[in-house]
């Protein structure tokens, strides 16, 4: 802001605070409800801050509901997906960044279009396909499906990041007789490190957040992930709001942690992801 009076500045910050508070109120309220006594949740009188802070909702989210199992399933799916999607996307991203060839635009389109089209036309037959392979309701099945869904974004981002690297690096490596494997994984991969971090965070969050894929490809606690588990909390007639809000807060935790400790990378992934696709 240019030179402005302290009063104007103060008003501006008050407006900012109100905007952020009102917009984020739903999540603020969920987080505060996760530590609010049950009788206050059911009280007809509104209060933002709990009069007493309790942790029992987290305890019952873990002991009464299978939250730990759901979280570990979510991590067992999300972490491999991050690794596999980037490794499988690297050759494609490199080819699109470094080569000119006849089918380039068509092939690129055939990859990135998958990021925009509706999921249901793929997921319903994919359920039948996975079922025929015995992969429904398995962690492996979810990893395979999610890896495929995350490759297009990774190819796109890697193409952009590799474009920014000077060509001389890999050309001189080629002249020295380095294999394509060496160039991709020992030279290019370390150089696009910060970009990889941004892709990894985005792919992790999108897998962690996913509901539709896991809803269709899982039936039981064997492979059910946290978001699907959360929706099951509500399936019962009487919803247990306290533990549900505690589990929701846990589901929000990775995003909040990235927002605090990796703001730069999250922002980079988000901006490129939104503007480039």
């Amino acid at each position, binding site marked *: 802001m240019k030179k402005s009076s302290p009063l104007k500045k103060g008003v501006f910050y008050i407006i*900012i605070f109100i*905007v952020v508070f009102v917009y984020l109120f739903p999540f603020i309220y969920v987080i505060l409800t996760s530590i609010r006594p049950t009788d206050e949740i059911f009280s007809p009188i509104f209060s933002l801050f709990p009069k007493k802070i309790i942790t029992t909702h987290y305890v019952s989210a873990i002991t009464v509901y299978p939250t730990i199992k759901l979280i570990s399933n979510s991590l067992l799916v999300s972490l491999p997906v991050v690794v596999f999607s980037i490794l499988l996307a690297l050759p494609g991203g490199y080819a699109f960044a470094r080569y000119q060839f006849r089918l380039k635009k068509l092939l690129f389109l055939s990859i990135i279009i998958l990021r925009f089209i509706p999921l249901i036309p793929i997921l319903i037959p994919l359920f039948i396909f996975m079922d025929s392979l015995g992969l429904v309701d398995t962690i492996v099945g979810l990893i395979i499906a999610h890896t495929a869904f995350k490759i297009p974004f990774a190819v796109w981002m890697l193409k952009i990041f590799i474009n920014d690297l000077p060509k001389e690096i890999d050309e001189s490596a080629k002249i020295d007789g380095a294999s394509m494997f060496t160039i991709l994984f020992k030279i290019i991969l370390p150089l696009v490190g910060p970009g990889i971090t941004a892709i990894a965070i985005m792919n992790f969050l999108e897998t962690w957040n996913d509901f539709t894929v896991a809803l269709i490809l899982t039936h039981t606690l064997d492979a059910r992930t946290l978001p699907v588990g959360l929706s099951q909390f509500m399936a019962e007639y009487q919803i247990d709001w306290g533990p549900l809000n505690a589990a929701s807060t846990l589901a929000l935790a990775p995003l909040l942690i990235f927002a605090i400790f990796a703001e730069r990378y999250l922002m980079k992934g988000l901006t490129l992801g939104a503007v480039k696709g």
Partner: protein
Amino acid sequence: MKSPIKGIEGPYSLIFFSLLPLIIVLYYPLLQGIWISLTYWSLLSNPVFVGVNNYIFVFSDLTIRKVFLQNIYFAAFSIPGAFLLGLGFALLLNRNFKGARIVRILLLIPYMAPSVVTGMTWRFLLHDQVGAINKILLSLNLIQSPIGWLTDINLAFICIIFARIWQFTPFVTLCLLSGLQAIPQDKIEAAQVDGASSFAIFTYIIIPFLRPIILLIFTLGFVDSFRVFDIIYVMTRGGPALSTQILPTYAYRLAFYSVDFGSACALSNVTLLIALILLLPVLKYLVGEKD
């Protein structure tokens, strides 16, 4: 550029590594979905070939027509709503103030939150007994008795749109913010020197500059409206009385509740076709970057 043809050096073999998983896991099911859409199949017996019967059903069924219209309204209200709110946020964030980075990341949180949590949150806030919205309205004496936001056949759809606006706004903010930051500052300064009002600068410099991004936001927003599933599934399951069903949720219902995989695939293939047609204007933008 001379490159050895043999081995995995060529671009096609490199792309093959990235494309193969997509062909097996995504494109093969898509094709299988076309075949399934031409059959009657309840998973219990073998699929029976029925030609285009399922498509005739999709185009003639009155419920599907209603669901299709709801999907259009859903897009037509939520995207402009999110656009206006996102524009406000972007203009606010475009000012250089201390703490702008923190505010920026905070305003983006709803976009990257698990949509199940978003749906659950709104279901909780809008709950007739424990929901904060009713509690606030009652304490302000704006209403006399609790409102069943998500159980009322008319209100539920409005609530769904509202939740979607809340969720989609940060995407608009992100796009517009990067557009605003790309506007050459000297143009705005020159106009200011010439005595142009802020409103004139906004209408004659900023908006024309942002036009391609605005087109992109509306196109991708409309396409995305045919992908929304989670928040509706969690908030209302498409009810009450189908009043919040849109095409993806209804296709899911046909497949996994009615166990009519043929019709479900036919409906979702039509949805896919709609999305592809809507995407046509931005395809060039999507692939047409300089290399």
